[in-house]
């Protein structure tokens, strides 16, 4: 059974450069994307910066509408893409949870039923939950958002490279939660630069470059292909993440 399907999807963005007296140009952030999302599958998306990973996740989540083609998801989609401000930085953790839950499509009765469970998933203390979100660290915001995403029991969960801000224990908890969701039938789509995690975790992996799917294969095949084709870029990215200045590569 498919949880959703993207068929021949193009997402075009307007070129933001102001050119007086001339029509705006358009650039394609996603091109000819056809992707099945089977129920319960763990799908990883890998690609360099600007390859279209986040755009693909946002298209799956319905945040971007396809310019051409069709994107259909048969149920609730929850995304963990941008966790910086929650629903409002001046609102408390509890208020954020409540508004985000409604935003993700939970009815009032559903929210009442799952509220305590979601609160426990955050791992935050009652004191923390009563503080405004602007006092939270990036990791605490992620905890809040991720707990809600899991607690909503979505049909599709789209997770961007946000897990990197969490501590090791919570990262492991997130992976476990995604596995549990997948076992219950949720399709989990994870965009990541962590190729070891992708190889270990995913059932299937797509490689994106310049908005196109270059390869849709098993994680081992996809990672090998990606390393072979983009190895230098990837090493530079990982080194940058680790705070290392890359001065050159030798083969």
């Amino acid at each position, binding site marked *: 059974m498919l949880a959703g399907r993207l068929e021949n999807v193009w997402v075009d963005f307007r070129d933001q450069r102001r050119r007086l007296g001339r029509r705006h140009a358009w650039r394609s952030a996603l091109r000819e994307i056809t992707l099945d999302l089977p129920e319960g599958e763990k799908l990883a998306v890998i690609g360099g910066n600007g390859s279209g990973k986040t755009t693909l996740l946002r298209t799956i989540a*319905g945040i971007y509408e396809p310019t051409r*083609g069709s994107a259909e998801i048969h149920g609730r989609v929850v995304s963990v893409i*941008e966790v910086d401000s929650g629903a409002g930085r001046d609102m408390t953790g509890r208020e954020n949870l409540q508004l985000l839950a409604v935003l993700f499509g939970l*009815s009032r009765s559903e929210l009442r039923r799952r509220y305590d469970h979601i609160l426990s998933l955050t791992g935050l203390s009652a004191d923390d939950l009563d503080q405004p979100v602007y006092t939270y660290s990036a990791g605490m915001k992620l905890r809040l958002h991720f707990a809600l995403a899991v607690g909503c029991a979505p049909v599709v969960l789209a997770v961007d490279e946000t897990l990197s801000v969490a501590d090791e224990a919570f990262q492991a908890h997130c992976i476990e939660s995604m596995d549990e969701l997948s076992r219950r039938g949720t399709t989990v789509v994870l965009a990541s630069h962590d190729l070891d995690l992708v190889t270990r975790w995913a059932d299937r992996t797509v490689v994106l470059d310049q908005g196109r799917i270059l390869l849709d294969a098993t994680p081992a095949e996809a990672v090998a292909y990606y390393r072979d084709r983009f190895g230098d870029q990837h090493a530079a990215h990982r080194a940058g993440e680790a705070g290392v200045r890359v001065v050159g590569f030798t083969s």
Partner: protein
Amino acid sequence: MTVTARPAVGSGAVIGTTALRRHLNLVRELAITQFKLKYTGSVLGYLWSLFKPMMLFGITYAIFVYLFNVGRTSPHFALQLLVAIVLFTFFQEATATAMSSVAGTGHLIRKAHFPRSILVLASSLSAFITFLINMTLIIVVGSAIGQMDLGLRSLLTPLFIVELYALVLGFSLGLSALFVFYRDLGHIWEIVTQLLLYGSAVVYPYSLLTHGHRLLGQIAGLNPVAQIIEDVRHALVAGNLPYPPGVNYGSGPAVPWMASILGAATYLVPLSLVAAIVALGVTIFRRLEPRFAENL
């Protein structure tokens, strides 16, 4: 190549009961949140929403009554002025706040799929809550001092308030969508609302507008803001039947049956304008909505 609207999560032409309930739930949550957040970090909180129109009222009353000697002859001028200021403040604040309701909530738009018009609706409803509280206070105080006429005529007031809300919503939809792409609009709208404040007989009696400039008064009466404010004043305060716009409110029509014909005709213009503004606002919003997320 086919282009398909995304039907799965509630948007689109056909909205099921579940999706509708979800949307209403979201409108309610957002409206309450915005109402609460508006006063977060403020010592006086909600009282500012009462103080601001009261201060504008005090200044305007002093200038017109003591400096220009306007409205001294009418015992009801103070209350008429207050009612007009509260109505206009709602129009001004609701449209100004709603204008940034989409551009200022990029963090929500980038998180989930939902009809973006909900943001505008919630913003205008939040302003509407403040307006209803203020209006209730005025009615209570006005009745206590014996200047409010709460007879049958006052039952027309909700109709004019619905008309005002429709006008606010029409402007809000169009402005909020355009503001995502053209931030100049904020400055332009400030000037337009100033023009409306002085062109709609908000801070002075309507009779002053028509006095000596009957044509000007009639043209000004075609403006829905002027019509709504004047009609609410007449329905609630002065105790006269709400005369049609464009007819001299100050002394009443000389030939009543002619006033009826004129009235019916001249009511059509402001009502048609409200309908046109709502239609235009919806059209602009629907056209630009798919491009919001990439621009925020």
